[in-house]
């Protein structure tokens, strides 16, 4: 079993679900930068955005198990290739250049065509007109108590000492996949070609050069924040520690994740006669509680109270932080522009391990 060395500081992510527009720019930015479409990584999406309620990716991941229960490591199950889906290729040559343009049609020639990274987009739950949904961006939560670390029989997963990123040492990894079973968020992939587990690396090469992770820095909805939890000047600290409006997903998994969410508001429900139900909640509160735990109630109450203040013409530090007048404030200490890096004068290898 792997050993956990705690970190001195912890980097954390915050996603504001009231600003997330589900555009998948973060997912694509990550895909193009890291896993790409190399052999073995075709179906990998280290960053994903799914519509909740929904089955997500891997399909029905929320019920696959993992994490901790009563302080004990739980090994859940590994998602199948079919539950991950994607990795599609098409018969382009046949249709476009192969002389069968009139009788051949594009179809999937490889990969799984019954599921994919964003298969149930915008479906959501409830019944029209009181249907509801919200977008949920997910990446490895770089947990404070990562189940994957403990589960690894080869001690191949570790937490970086100075920022708490959870990384898989691909040299030590033997591809047992215990980490995949242990991760309750099912955010670890398996590279069958190389026989190693792979997952979000927290953009460590960028972080080592003072540049924010791609999912945060490339978010056009300006819904993503990154920074040290103990850095009082960071937006992440203000939202998580000071205002308690950013809360973890499925805290009951017991892994103390470091990805936090500002929970979603929604327009009020409509009564059967068409009038507005002023006191109702379109997204059932029990559903929100099943996602974010009991803390969702205070987070939403704080958010609504601050919105009311703002509409009365008063100021709100919380909402100013979420508005993000200066985009750089979302990036914490990682505000360097990568285009400024000149690799002739900058060591390719980061100074830190």
């Amino acid at each position, binding site marked *: 079993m792997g050993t956990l060395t705690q970190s001195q500081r912890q980097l954390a992510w915050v996603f504001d679900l*009231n*600003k997330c*527009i*589900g*555009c998948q*720019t973060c*997912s*694509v*930015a990550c895909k193009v*930068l*890291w896993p790409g*479409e190399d052999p073995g990584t075709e179906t990998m999406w280290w960053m994903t955005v799914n519509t909740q309620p929904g089955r997500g990716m891997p399909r029905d991941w929320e019920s696959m198990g993992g994490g901790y229960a009563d302080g004990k490591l739980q090994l859940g199950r590994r998602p199948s290739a079919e539950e991950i889906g994607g990795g599609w290729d098409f018969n*382009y*040559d046949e249709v*476009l*250049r*192969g*002389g*069968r*343009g*009139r009788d*051949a049609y594009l179809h999937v020639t490889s990969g799984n065509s019954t599921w994919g990274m964003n298969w149930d987009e*915008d479906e959501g739950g409830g019944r029209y*007109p009181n*249907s509801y949904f*919200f977008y949920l961006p997910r990446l490895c939560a770089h947990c404070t108590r990562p189940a994957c670390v403990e589960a690894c029989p080869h001690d191949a997963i570790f937490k970086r000492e100075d920022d708490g990123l959870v990384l898989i*040492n691909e040299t030590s990894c033997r591809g047992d996949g215990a980490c995949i079973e242990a991760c309750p968020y099912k955010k670890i992939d398996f590279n069958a070609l190389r026989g190693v587990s792979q997952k979000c*690396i927290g953009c*460590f*090469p960028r972080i080592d050069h003072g540049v924010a992770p791609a999912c945060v*820095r*490339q978010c*056009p909805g*300006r*819904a993503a924040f990154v920074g040290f939890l103990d850095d009082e000047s960071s937006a992440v600290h203000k939202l998580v520690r000071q205002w308690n409006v950013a809360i973890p997903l499925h805290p009951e998994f017991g892994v103390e994740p470091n990805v936090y969410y500002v929970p*979603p508001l*929604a*327009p009020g429900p*409509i009564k059967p006669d*068409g*009038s*507005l139900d002023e006191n109702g909640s379109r997204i059932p509160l029990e559903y929100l509680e099943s996602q974010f735990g009991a803390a969702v109630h205070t987070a939403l109450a704080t958010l609504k109270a601050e*919105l009311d203040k*703002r*509409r009365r*013409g008063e100021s709100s530090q919380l909402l100013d932080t*979420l*508005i*993000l*007048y*200066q*985009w*750089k404030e979302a990036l914490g200490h990682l505000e360097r*522009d*990568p*285009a400024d890096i*000149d*690799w*002739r004068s900058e060591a*390719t290898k980061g100074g830190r391990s």
Partner: protein
Amino acid sequence: MSTNITRRGFLKASGAGVAVLALSSFHLSHGAAPAYAAAPKAVEYQGWKDVFRQKWTWDSVAHCSHTRANCISACAWNVYVKDGIAWREEQAQAYNEARGGAPDFFPRGCQKGASYSDLMAAPTRLRYPLQRVGERGGGKWKRIGWDEALSTIADKMIDIAVEHGSEAIVYDQGTTNIDFGPGTAAELRMVHLMRVSHIEDWAGVGDMPMGCVQTWGMFNCEGTTDDWFNSDCIVVWSGNPVYTRIPEMHFMTEARYKGAKLIVIAPDLNATSIHADLWINPRVESDPALGLSMAQVMISEDLIDHDYVREQSDLPFLVRKDNGRFLRESDFKRKGRDNAFYLWDENKSKVVLAPGTEGMRKASLALGSIKPALEGSFSVKLADGSLVEVETVFSVLRRDLDRDYTPEKAAEISGVHPAVIRRAAREIAAAGSAMIFASWGACKHYHSDLMHRTMALLMALTGNQGKSGGGLRMAAWWQISGFEQLGGVYEIKWWQNALLKFIGRPPVREIEKLITQHSDADMFTPLMPWLYVHAGYDKTMGKAEYNDGIPGMSTGEALDKSLERGWVPVYPRPGVDPKMLFFSAPNPLRRWPTPQVAREHLWPKLDLIVNVNFRMSTTSRWCDILLPAAGYYEKASIKYAQNYLPYLVIADKAVEPLG
């Protein structure tokens, strides 16, 4: 008009076209572009970490954008180049500071931009000129050289021009491959000089906000998008900006955090509705009734901005009760103007000419000492001595709304509860500034002019049109200065310029005349009538059952009538068949309605179909010769977003074109 010319004459003309085409290779260098040549580096693999570290290195960074994409967002990107390949892209930190208290513009760009490096090298990419082998659409091609491709096309064009007239050659740029930068200007100039038929792209995609044109005589009614943040009430109506305005949407979610109400009017609970404070779900296409009932609430509860309405709208204009027309100067004087209208001045208790209308010399709406009556009936004596009763437009409007569009009546039409209609009307009226975001999607409905006019009415009643953070936001289109001259599109003569300077503003009818002259000279032809005449669409549009009968005739009958009377120009003129289609990257067999009809009826008439495109699209598959275009990162250009953004992007060439 079509030009019948000799082979020799054509060669001369097309030679000029080629010379101008070369303009598209203008290199607009970006001052900050790092241009060092990279020495080949040995990749050091010292363990798994270095594999990742090496992945995030590059030789150079180019300043790029997606310059000839049909996108109104003009985002600045940095393209990271490694070993001569555009390896990835990331939004550039290229904008100025925020303005007027709004949040800044960073980081602009979406998932499509973030994956273009991948798409540029996709299996559908065209790399060299291709000539069809075998039947059209059969998917069999032969690679040919550029010289052979261009000679084949030029020879065929000359043959067609000599035999059938140049109008039998039809050019369609669609909206896919235009950026209104130098590349587009060069292309338009070439088409202009070749004097071929030219399918008008704006009508072709149904982007024309007819209700705005009818109300204001113009369509431009959008400001820069950071101004959305200044709104106190944003009504998203028949648009879905979460999908369509990805880099700008944050100004709406952030305005909400600043205290603005976000109202979304859409039949579906879409990706924007979920962010609303109030979601209103009318039945499909019942929007005008919903809007008119909000106007009814505003008027009956006196929530309107009286000063604004008196000065800025035609609601106090007087209308004759006997014939329903505006009271005009020509009613009083034999040679009076028919475009000078009247108000009832409460100060003087008599009719006075309304300032600022087309017939008035002075281009100002300022009322001075006039206090126009908003309501009332009055008797006036006409030139022939007869008395007529007149009333204000506002009186007519109030009567009509009270009769047909109370919230209770509108609820029957729209399915929206009267209490919801009242609440929305009150919230819009109470806001310091309220805006309606409708966008281009609002132009693509049957009778959408009625939707636009309702929206314009609500914004006028509440005094919001023209205000920061307020007004109807639907469409905008400005070109950069000099584009017209470069493209040879509008030719404004020196004397016209001098005249404009002298009179201060061009009369609307003069502008209309200029545009009509230009579109006639360039053989512009609107898409749908063109398809009706040449592509077999008379088989579909002529069907009575496809028509709601409101204009009193089918679309086909209406088109026949307009063609007969010369209201709608179609080139080639009816009777002359199109012989060649020349596409500059649009995808008409995907965009045109019922493309199978075009394939059945239009395609057999064509001797040659050419597509300049960077990919094998649906249309490319049904062409004869394909010319590969450079990808967005393979050419220098300018990208700008009309007036949605306060800047333009000057894009460098990052890499050489593939192939």
